[in-house]
């Protein structure tokens, strides 16, 4: 199992005739993703890497029964592409484009949200991004730009605001034999479609995901919100990392959302929030595999038959949560790999 994409994903590529769109179409097909169509207004009737091109998303959906779309169009037109996909009934919209004005993202976000039914806990239609690397379910499907060769199937769910930092950590996980259910990059913009809490909810509900790696960065308070959510609702072990511990205030660190403003959004605050929620925090990326391996082992030791455990976690129950919570806290305190955050260290 996995979240959001699998072998049933039928993908269209918006902006398929562009340089990035064409290149990554080829990469996604090579990985095994079912790319059923592409959209570039005015280029309908052409084919790219054997994929038919349509003039509109609606046309593409009618002809191919696509359920997922990935957007590679230039930033000035990216929000429009999200609106079009939502109106055409696409259920998962992944926007890779970087540099979309926040006001445009905001309108597109609310359009997608408005299409969502009331009784729809796992959220469809859903927007991922913008300014994100997309997602990959090892062995089944990749949507976006994550390199396929660094992932391998396994029990870890990965969610991150970053691109190459995610590759770095995923490769280290893979090298340690820690495979992944799904790796999802949610993007580094101030306003994004799918946030940490959404991804945590999905991983918690996914029976094959046994542990979660969360990688945040400075700016905003999504990490603090995620920490609270984990404490209340996530029974599976989580390891967190926060990039930008040395970032100066008031400067955008590459990502539009990565800025410490008015003294808030610092890495120290975020790391403290995770620790307060009982979530072990890796100080450097290479600590992540050790931390997650240890938590995974403890979880499996607690539940002697891992396969059955996973199945019983499908619907998180009160009893399951209270059974695992007391067990998780000592882990974070006793684990030799868990060190205090910088802030805590300074206080000493």
């Amino acid at each position: 199992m996995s979240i959001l994409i699998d072998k049933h994903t039928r993908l269209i590529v918006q902006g398929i005739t562009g340089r990035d769109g064409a290149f990554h179409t080829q990469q996604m097909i090579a990985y095994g993703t079912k790319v059923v169509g592409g959209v570039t207004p005015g280029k309908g009737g052409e084919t790219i890497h054997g994929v038919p091109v349509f003039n509109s998303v609606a046309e593409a959906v009618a002809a191919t029964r696509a359920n997922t779309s990935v957007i590679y169009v230039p930033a000035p037109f990216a929000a429009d592409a999200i609106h079009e996909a939502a109106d055409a009934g696409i259920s998962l919209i992944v926007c890779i484009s970087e540099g979309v004005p926040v006001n445009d993202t905001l309108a597109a976000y609310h359009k997608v949200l408005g299409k969502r039914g009331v009784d729809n806990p796992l959220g469809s239609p859903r927007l991922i991004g913008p300014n994100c690397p997309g997602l990959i379910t090892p062995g089944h499907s990749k949507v976006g730009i994550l390199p396929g060769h660094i992932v391998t199937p396994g029990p870890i769910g990965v969610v991150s605001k970053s691109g190459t930092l995610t590759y770095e950590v995923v490769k280290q996980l893979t090298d340690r034999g820690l495979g992944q259910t799904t790796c999802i990059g949610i993007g580094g913009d101030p306003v994004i479609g799918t946030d940490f809490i959404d991804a945590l909810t999905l991983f918690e509900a996914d029976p094959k995901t046994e542990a979660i790696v969360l990688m945040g960065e400075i700016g905003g308070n999504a990490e603090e919100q995620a920490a609270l959510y984990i404490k209340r609702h996530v029974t599976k072990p989580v390891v967190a990392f926060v990039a930008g511990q040395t970032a100066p205030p008031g400067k955008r660190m590459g990502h539009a959302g990565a800025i410490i403003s008015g003294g808030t959004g610092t890495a120290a605050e975020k790391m403290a929030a995770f620790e307060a929620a009982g979530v072990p925090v890796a100080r450097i990326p290479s600590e992540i595999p050790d931390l997650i391996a240890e938590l995974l082992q403890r979880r499996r030791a607690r539940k002697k038959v891992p396969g059955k455990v996973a199945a019983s976690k499908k619907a998180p129950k009160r009893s399951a949560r209270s059974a695992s919570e007391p067990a998780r806290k000592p882990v974070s305190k006793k684990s030799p790999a868990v060190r205090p955050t910088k802030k805590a260290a300074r206080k000493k």
Partner: protein
Amino acid sequence: MNLHEYQGKELFARYGLPVLPGQVAGTPEEAREIAASIGGSVVIKAQVQVGGRGKAGGVKLANTPEEAYEKARDILALTIKGHAVRKVLVAQAADIAKEYYLSIVMDREKKAPLIMLSSEGGVEIEEVAKVAPEKIIRYHIPLTGLRPYEARNLMLRVFSDFSQAQQAASILIKLYQVYLDGDCSLAEINPLAVTPEGKVIALDAKVVLDDNAEFRHKDWANWRDPEEETPGQRLAREKGLSYVKLEGDIGCIVNGAGLAMATMDLIKHYGGEPANFLDIGGSSNPEKVTAALKIITTDSQCRAILFNIFGGITRCDDVANGIVTSLKAAPLGVPLVIRLTGTNEDKARRILSDFGLGATTSMDEAVQMVIAKAQEEAS
């Protein structure tokens, strides 16, 4: 992009917000002329993008043009919190009966623009939030827009005088237009002042623009202050690279913002100090690598440089070619440590070794190596 006060006021004036007449001056002579043309008392305000200008002596009252000359001369000689004052705003002085705070900012969590309003104006809002949080009114602007009645009702919560509330409501509606049309991520009036005659005016302007929207605002280019940039920053902007200068001595060139931040953190973790943040982006051609090296070497006193490349879309051989081309054109003068892994890694290694350079695959190892090299250089 952050605007100077005088630029923010220009923007406000376009939308009919009440600002007092004033002009920007770069010399004391200009300040004298402007003061004479405005007539009466003027305020001379340092145009630097930091808070606390008043306390630092950057805001002064002048009653005559000659006094304006003297005060401007004094202020133009100041450096406030590390920012040299190069321009002053000379604006008509106003008597103030009461000061309020008003701003619109993007609330990332609620995904809506947020109005912040307070009866405690003239001080930094972060301060108010600390000492008297109950004095800040927060209101999210609905998706369907801000209605006049909403603006009026909000203002009636802090203004006891109806006419003043009405004026402030009209200011709020216009400020939201500035925020929307102008693609602002912050539009702030602090203080929103009431004169003894009961007139409500915007005495200051703080505007932050969403850089992503620059493609539809041709006029933003005129607002960019070239003197605010270091040569390296200018080059980075022209080449489309994300770059932030820091105080350390280890230069780093990385692909991807998250990895670049993590690289800085790792340098600090192992006992070094990063000289910069620099993201060469996804599809890095050799030219970008050359530019990156130039940016770092012109701007900082770095003692060693680290390349940290995780090849995905970025091809390692492109980066290797960029490094070799740059070094052939001009030797660096400081040691170089290269870490690369991913797409076309083997090709990249061959290119580098033909030129006598090695490369490691581990990020931790590379960071420790570059710190050691920098320490050797220092001693």
